[in-house]
C-alpha cells in the first residue's frame, strides 16, 4: 500500500522542464507538478479502505442478526417451502412449543406450560418443576446465588489487596477452568449419584459461570476508590465485616446485579455440561432446545428457539436499564 502511495510522487514530472537552479535560501526545490499530484492523488487505502471495512461490517451484522430475525418471523408462519415463509399469522407452533391447547398430550418436547397451569392449584410448589423453563430458571438462580457468595468476595480481594499469588488467583477466577464437556465428564466420575441432580447442575453451573460474575463485579470495583471507602468507614467505627457488607457491596450494586443477570442467562443456556450430566427430571432449557432441533419440524423448532431469543432479549433489556450494553465476556 505504502509503495503505491509514494510511487506517483517519485516518478512524476520527469518530462517537464525542471528548475534545477539552487534556491537562494539553500532549501530544496520542489516541482510544481509534484505538489499538484500530492494534493489530488489519494492512496488506494484512503479510497477503498473505508468502503471495504464498512462492507465487512455490514455483512457481519447481517450474518449475525438476520437469521435471528428470520427465525422469529418464521415461527409465526404456516409453512416455509419457497424462498420465504408464508401463511402468516399462526400461533400453532408457539402453542405446540409452550405446551398449550390440543398439543399437550403429544408434546413430548414442549415447555409443558399447560400442564403446569392445570396442576398449579393442586400442587403449587411442585407444578413448575415439570416445565423445562422453570426448572432451568431455578437451576440458574441457584448457580447465581452460589456465584454471589463466591464471586463478590474474590473480586474484592483481588481489586483491593496486594498478596502473594494474587495474579494467579485472578487468572483462575477470570478464565474458565474447564469447559462444560470436560467438567461434565469429571462430574460423572466424581459424583456419580449427584451429578444429574439439582445439586450437581447448580454446582457445575456456578463454577462454569463464575468468571462472568467476577469480571462484572471487578469492573465495578475498579471504578471505586476502595481504599478510601474502606478507611473512612473504618475510621467512623464500622468493623471490617460491616464495612464490607454495608459500604463496599452496596456501592458495587450495579456491577453485582449485571453480573448476576449475565450469569443467570448463561447458566440457563448452558448446553454442553447439562447434556453430559443430565439424567432425570424436566430437561433444562438448552436440552429442550436440542430435543426440538433434533426431532421437531423446522417451524416448531423456530418457535422453540424464539422462546429462548425472548429470554435473551429480556435479559439484554434488563442490562441496558442498568447501564450496561448487552453481554460481555
Amino acid at each position, binding site marked *: 500500500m505504502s509503495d503505491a502511495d509514494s510511487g506517483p510522487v517519485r516518478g512524476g514530472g520527469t518530462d517537464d522542464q525542471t528548475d534545477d537552479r539552487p534556491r537562494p535560501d539553500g532549501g530544496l526545490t520542489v516541482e510544481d507538478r509534484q505538489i499538484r499530484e500530492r494534493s489530488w492523488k489519494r492512496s488506494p487505502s484512503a479510497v477503498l479502505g473505508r468502503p471495504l471495512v464498512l462492507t465487512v461490517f455490514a455483512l457481519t451484522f447481517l450474518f449475525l442478526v438476520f437469521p435471528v430475525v428470520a427465525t422469529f418471523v418464521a415461527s409465526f408462519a404456516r409453512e416455509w417451502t419457497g424462498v420465504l415463509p408464508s401463511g402468516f399469522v399462526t400461533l400453532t407452533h408457539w402453542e405446540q412449543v409452550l405446551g398449550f391447547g390440543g398439543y399437550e398430550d403429544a408434546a413430548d418436547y414442549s415447555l409443558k406450560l399447560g400442564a403446569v397451569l392445570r396442576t398449579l392449584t393442586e400442587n403449587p410448589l411442585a407444578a413448575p418443576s415439570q416445565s423445562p423453563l422453570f426448572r432451568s430458571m431455578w437451576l440458574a438462580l441457584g448457580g447465581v446465588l452460589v456465584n454471589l457468595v463466591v464471586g463478590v468476595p474474590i473480586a474484592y480481594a483481588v481489586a483491593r489487596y496486594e498478596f502473594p499469588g494474587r495474579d494467579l488467583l485472578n487468572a483462575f477466577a477470570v478464565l474458565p477452568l474447564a469447559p462444560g464437556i470436560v467438567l461434565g465428564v469429571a462430574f460423572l466420575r466424581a459424583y456419580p449419584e449427584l451429578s444429574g441432580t439439582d445439586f450437581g447442575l447448580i454446582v457445575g453451573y456456578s463454577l462454569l459461570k463464575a468468571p462472568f460474575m467476577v469480571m462484572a463485579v471487578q469492573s465495578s470495583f475498579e471504578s471505586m476508590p476502595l481504599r478510601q471507602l474502606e478507611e473512612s468507614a473504618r475510621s467512623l467505627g464500622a468493623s471490617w465485616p460491616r464495612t464490607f457488607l454495608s459500604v463496599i457491596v452496596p456501592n458495587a450494586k450495579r456491577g453485582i446485579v449485571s453480573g448476576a443477570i449475565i450469569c443467570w442467562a448463561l447458566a440457563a443456556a448452558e448446553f*454442553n455440561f447439562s447434556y453430559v450430566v443430565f439424567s432425570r427430571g424436566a430437561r433444562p432449557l438448552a436440552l429442550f432446545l436440542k430435543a426440538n432441533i433434533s426431532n421437531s419440524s423446522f417451524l416448531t423448532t423456530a418457535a422453540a428457539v424464539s422462546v429462548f431469543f425472548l429470554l435473551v432479549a429480556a435479559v439484554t433489556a434488563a442490562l441496558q436499564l442498568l447501564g450496561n450494553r448487552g453481554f460481555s465476556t
Partner: protein
Amino acid sequence: MSTDEAAGGTGGTDGRRADALAAVSAAFHAGAARLPDPLGRVLQPHTERDRERRRVIALCAPFCLLATVAGVYPLSEMLRISVSEAKYVSEGFSLSAYERLLADPHLRASAVNTLWFSLATTIVSLGVATATAHALEKYDLPFRGALLTLLSFPISLPGIVAAFMIIVLLGNTGLVTNLVAWFTGRSSVDLAVATSVGGLFVAYCYSMIPRAFLLLRGSYAEVNERTEEAARSLGASPARTFYHVTLPQIKPGVIGAFILTFRTALAIFGTVLILQTLRVWTYEIDYALSSGSGFDIQLAAAMATVWFAFVLGFTALGLRYTSAEVGL
C-alpha cells in the same frame, strides 16, 4: 408474661450464653496459640498486617471451596480413572487408555481436525471481528449503541442455536440457499451446505465472531487517537496508519483475544452435535460416553484430560511469553 420477667429471662440466657461463649473463645485462643505461628496468626492476628491477611483469606475462601468441590476434585477423579487399571473403579496405575488414544487412527485424525479447524476459524473470526470493531469504533456510524447491542446478542446463544442459525441460512430450505437457487435455477438441495465442513466453519464463526469482537472493542477503546491523527496528517495512508500505529497499540488485545477465541473454538461441542460433519475432539469425548461404545468413561476421561492439559498449557504459555492482555 410481664416484660420484667421476659427481660430477666433473656438476661439469664444471655448470661449463660456469654459464659459459654467465653469458654469457647478461651478454648479457641488456647488452641490457636498452640498452632504453628503463621496459621495461629491467621486465626488470632496480632498486627494490622495479620488482620489484612486474615481478610484476604476469608475473601478468597468461598471461591477456593467452590473451585475445589466443583473443579479440582472432579478433575483429579477424572485423571485417576483415566490411569486406572480397572474400568469403573480407580485402582492401580496403567496408561492403557492413553495408549488406546495414541493407537487409534480415528482419534489421531480427530485431534488433527480439531486443531486445524479451530485455528482456521479463530483466524477468520479475529480478522472479521477486527474489521467490525474498527468500523464501529473509528467511523461515526449512526445508532452505534443499538448496533453494539445487536452484535453482542449472539454471545449468549449456545452452540446448538448457532448451528440452527446456520441451518436457517444455509440448510435445505435456508434463506441463502433458496436465494441462490432462485437466481441460478439449480435445486436447493444441491446447494445446501449447512451440513458440510463449510457450513460447520460458518457455524463456528457465528459463535466466535461476537466474542472476539467484544474483546477487541475493549482494546480499541484504549487506542491513543492522537497518534493516528498525527500519522495521517504526516501523509501516511489509512492502511499504513493502521499497520504501523493502530495495530501495535491493539496487539496485546489481539493476542489475548486470539487465546480466548481459540479456547472457545476447542470447546465447541453443541454445534458439531447438531451439524454432524467433522469428528472433533469434544465430539469424540461424548461418543466414548455413548452407549454405542459402551460408556467407556476411562477413554473419555483420558481424552478430557488431554484436552484440559493442552488448553491449560497453551493458555499458560500464551500468557507468559506474549504481551497478551486477557480481560476487558
